[in-house]
Each structure stands twice: as structure tokens, then as C-alpha cells.
């Protein structure tokens, strides 16, 4: 509410070149992220929602400078991360951490849990000695509700949910302020998913963490996020407070997404296919509004002119109907 947000993304564009031929000449671009603005206040959670290929993961990777953005600014604590030389970027890498969907792919199978978690501490100079770091690993394992005596085991000796706890412990080891969770609970069974969601909630309360959730799962979003940004083909089409987005979605795509989620209420058998067809290729996004080819409410103007993010009550919506 008060000061400036912890993370502020402005006009982010990340395009991937399409190369062809012997000389690998660039013949076009996949406009994975095309003009994204986001802001998260310290201690809050923002969910970036969208379907596969909408660019949500690329936003996360661009914020972490794991992909090189073509344009835009990523302000973190008053500094533009995209314009820092790599040595100066390094200290910020401990402030921003990421937890991925597949914990097995993000843990080195030949590294003991203790070493996987202590590795980051070592490189950021956290803990004075190896034994101090070992103590910290024990505390972190306890923090994520694992038995510290298991620190000398290998990742394959843990279940899927436990491995995700290990990844969370590893992210916490370097004392981050912002944690990006990229589909962090999507691969888990619901009973395990609930355990991890509760853990993430506790950690936020106790440590004052700020979260960016990147997810396709709207059920998780409603439970976790203070604010939601909905992405479609590289752009944000709607954003606002979570309750407002769920109770009164303004953009036809948001409405279609919400209507498509099957409910478990036996009195409501409701999932409706309002959004038809497939997502167009981000290499050739449609002219005008990018959603007009699938929009149930499209009219002439939508194919000719690109709508901006119009202000609506409690947020913004990229649709002429919200103008």
C-alpha cells in the first residue's frame, strides 16, 4: 500500500528468434512475452495465470535474468535487474529464488540432500563454516517438516511431495525475499498438494516472503493469491484482486477460463466450453486483439485495432467492452 512494490516489471518483452537455413538467419520472432507490466508488494502473492504457451514461464525466467529480455525493466528494491552487469547482479540472485514443477529434474540425483541445500549458502557466503551450514540445513529441513536426519540421503529416496519440500528448503537456504513458484504444486496429488500449499502459506506468514505464483490451476490461485494477472499470447489481458477476478471477471478470456474449470459441487454440473478452438501461434499472433479469433463476444473493431489495458473497477482489462 505504502512505498514502492518489491518487484515491478515494466514493458517486458522477451522474443525468441526463429532461425532458418544454413546461415541460421533470423526469419521471425516468437513473441513469448510482449509488453508485460506487473507489480508485487512485499509480503503479498501475485498469481500469473494462463494456459500453455501464453508466456507465463518466460516472464518468470526473464525476471530472474535466465532469459534475456529484449526490452523492459525489472525493478527490484529500486534497482533495474535487466541493466546490471553480471557481477553486480550476483548478490540479487539470493533475493530471488525459484521452485519448479518437477523437483526430480531440479535436484542433482548424485548430490546428497545436505549438499544440495548447502550449495547456495556456500556460494553466497552464508554460514561461517561447513558445520554451521550443516546445522542450518537441519533447521531448514525441520522448517519444511522433514526429518533432519535424512539430510545424508539422495533425492531418489524421497517421495514427490518430500522432494518439493527439499526444493523449497533449498530456495529458503539463501534467505530470499521473493520466491517464484512455477507450477510448483501442479504435479502433485491433491492430498500432497494441500500439504505443500499449507507449508507455503506458513512460510509466507513466518518469514514475510513475497510470492509470484506461475500456474494454470485456478483453484490454487484463488486459495493462494492476493492478486491475479491473466496472460494470453504474451500479454496480460486482465488483472486485479483475486476475489474481484473470480466474482466479476471482465475479460471474455478470463470468463471463459473460469467457466471451463469443472466444479466439484454435485448440484452444479457446469463446465462450459465458451472458448473454442486452439491458441494461435505466438510467432504469428492475430492482428487486433490477440484473443479475437476465439472470443465469443468479438466484433469488427477487435480484429482491426489492439485494445489497451483499460482501467476497470479493481483492476484492468484488455478488451474494448471494458473501455
Amino acid at each position, binding site marked *: 500500500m505504502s512505498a514502492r512494490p518489491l518487484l515491478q516489471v515494466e514493458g517486458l518483452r522477451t522474443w525468441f528468434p526463429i532461425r532458418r537455413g544454413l546461415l541460421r538467419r533470423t526469419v521471425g520472432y516468437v513473441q513469448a512475452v510482449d509488453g508485460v507490466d506487473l507489480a508485487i508488494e512485499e509480503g503479498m502473492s501475485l498469481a500469473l495465470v494462463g494456459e500453455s504457451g501464453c508466456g507465463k514461464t518466460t516472464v518468470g525466467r526473464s525476471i530472474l535474468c535466465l532469459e534475456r529480455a529484449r526490452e523492459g525493466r525489472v525493478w527490484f528494491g529500486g534497482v533495474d535487474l535487466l541493466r546490471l552487469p553480471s557481477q553486480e547482479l550476483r548478490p540479487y540472485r539470493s533475493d530471488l529464488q525459484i521452485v519448479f514443477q518437477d523437483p526430480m529434474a531440479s535436484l542433482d540425483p548424485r548430490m546428497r540432500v545436505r549438499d544440495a541445500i548447502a550449495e547456495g549458502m556456500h556460494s553466497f557466503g552464508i554460514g561461517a563454516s561447513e558445520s554451521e551450514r550443516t546445522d542450518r540445513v537441519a533447521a531448514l529441513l525441520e522448517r519444511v517438516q522433514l526429518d533432519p536426519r535424512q539430510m545424508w540421503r539422495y533425492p531418489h529416496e524421497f517421495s514427490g511431495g518430500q522432494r518439493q519440500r527439499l526444493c523449497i528448503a533449498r530456495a529458503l537456504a539463501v534467505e530470499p525475499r521473493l520466491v517464484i513458484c512455477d507450477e510448483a504444486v501442479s504435479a502433485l496429488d491433491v492430498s500432497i498438494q*494441500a500439504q505443500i500449499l*499449507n507449508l507455503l502459506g506458513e512460510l509466507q506468514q513466518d518469514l514475510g516472503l513475497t510470492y509470484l505464483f506461475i500456474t494454470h490451476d485456478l*483453484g490454487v490461485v*484463488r*486459495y493462494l493469491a492476493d492478486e491475479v494477472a491473466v496472460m494470453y499470447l504474451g500479454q496480460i489481458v486482465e488483472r486485479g484482486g483475486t476475489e474481484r477476478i473470480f466474482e466479476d471477471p471482465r475479460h471474455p478470456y478470463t470468463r471463459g477460463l473460469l467457466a471451463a*474449470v469443472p466444479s466439484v459441487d*454435485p448440484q452444479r454440473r457446469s*463446465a462450459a*466450453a465458451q472458448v473454442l478452438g486452439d491458441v494461435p501461434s505466438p510467432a504469428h499472433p492475430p492482428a487486433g486483439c490477440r484473443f479475437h479469433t*476465439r472470443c465469443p463476444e468479438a466484433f469488427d473493431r477487435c480484429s482491426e485495432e489492439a485494445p489497451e489495458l483499460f482501467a476497470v473497477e479493481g483492476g484492468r482489462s484488455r478488451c474494448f467492452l471494458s473501455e
Partner: protein
Amino acid sequence: MSDTPAEAVIETRGLTTTFPGEGGRVPVVDQVDLQIAVGEVLALVGESGCGKSMTALSMLRLVPKPGRIEAGEISLAGSDLRRLSVPAMRQVRGQEISMIFQEPMTSLNPVATVGAQVVEAIRLHESVSKAEARRRTLDLFTRVGIPDPDSRLDAYPHQLSGGLKQRVMIAMALSTRPRLLIADEPTTALDVTIQAQILQLLRDLQQEFGMSILLITHDLGIVNELADRVSVMYAGRIIEEGSRVDILGEARHPYTRGLLLSLPSLASRGERLAEIPGVVPPPDQWPPGCRFSTRCGRVFEPCTTQVPAVSEITGTHRSWCFAVAREIES
């Protein structure tokens, strides 16, 4: 037992499938009874490793080695599939029972056009000319909502989106007008807007063809969209069954209730989600007595030593739980 007369398309009784473990063979599907009536959608629900997919593979006699069906009956319209010869069973698969899987890419041949693959499937089961089979394929592609079906006949799988590939798989599965379609997580790999389209399609086709569907899923929302009846599976056994409304609205077994309560969509922001503690143990460590007893909040003395018998809650709703049985008695 007596309330499932001859109208069941398929019925399993005491179906048990085992895999070798350290101390002998371990049942991963343990005495499973299922009945699916004509035109009915039965959902088999459970988390990873509960044995739901293995149950379906057992019904098709496709259990991968070293697994094998140990006991039980699988009767399709009265004949026991376990007694059929291998060639006769091959005719049943595809002709009487078709199956679609989660990942259509792995079920389609990447070097043949999708049209040719459906034509081949038709001609495998019926002696019709190539031209006739192609005409029927075109018809099916139109029926399953593939846009521009004419040119899509000559497309290769990689040229189609995930949703379109799943539509091709459905067209192939329906090409022989099966009595039973087994759909194993048919929309899990798809985005929600595409999932809604495929669910709608399955609903329409089921009505149109009057076939029965065995829907295998972990997603209770999809159960609500498609199922008439539901069987909930945990650690190889059915632990509760009933109508869609019985299970989603009036669940009694602590596991089914736990699954429903752990869904974030039912909780509000900031509220703690109900957890089911621990994880599903691997098959060789399944506890004696009730298999859920190691994670259950309502466990009492008989649970850890005896296998719970069935309790009839209503005419359609049954559960296998000592706590539920005690509630019913009092």
C-alpha cells in the same frame, strides 16, 4: 450384488492383479468389483499409484509383465474375458472395448498420417474397402469436431495441437462403435479451455452412441462433469462407491472426505487446507487391516488388524470402513 442384473456391459468380480515383490507377489489390484451398465459412465477415482490404471489394463488383459492377473472374473456381456484365446481377446480390444490415454502423442504413430491410422484401425476390425474406410474416417473427424477435416486426414500427429490429437484418438476409439470406452485421464495433459471442449465432446458422443464409459481420473471436478457413478480406489481396493451425488455431496469414507476437503478451490484465502497426513505407501508396504489406517484420523481398534466389510449406506451408496459401519449401526 443382485441389483446389477444382465444389463451390465462389463463386470469384474474379485479382480486381483499382482506384481513380484521382495516377499512374494504383491497385489496392486486387490479383489476389485466393478459393474458398468449400458450407457453408464463410471468414474474410477484415486491418486497416483492407487491401482486405477492397472485395473483398466487388467480388464483389457494388457497387464505389463512381470505383472499378471491372479484371480477374478471379467465378464463382458456375459462371457468371461479371462477365458478367451489371445486372438479372440484381440478382437475384443478395439471392437468391443476401446481405450484412450492421457498423452495422445505417445499413442499415435509419428510417421503415419492420422487419417491412415484411423483407416487402418477400421480395416483391422472390418473388411471394408480403403475408400469406404476413408469416407468413414472423414465422417468421424467431422463428428469429433476436427475443423477442416478433409485436409486434417493427411496431417501427421506433430502437426496437430494436443486437443486435436485427443480428438483423433477419440475418433479412432469410436471407429468400431465399441460398447465400452475406457478413458484414462483423457484431459489431464490439456489446458482447461481445451479440456472443457473434450469433456463436452465425450458427453455428446456418449449420448449419441449410447456407449458406456469407464473414466479413470484423479480429478473430482471431471468426475462431476462426466460420471453417473463413482468408485473410489485407495491402495488397490475400492473403498467407497455410489452415485455422483453420493460421493461428491455425501461422502462418508474418511479418505474420500479427505480428498474433497484438501481441494484448494473449496477453501477460502488464508484458511488452512485440510491435509491427509503422510503419503500412500508403496504396494509392498500396504498395512494389514484397512489400508488407509496409517493415514486415517478416525482409526480405532479393528482398523489395523481386520479388513473392513462393506456397509450399505443407501441403496446406491456403499463404503468399506469400520467407522462408517459403526455410525450406521448407532
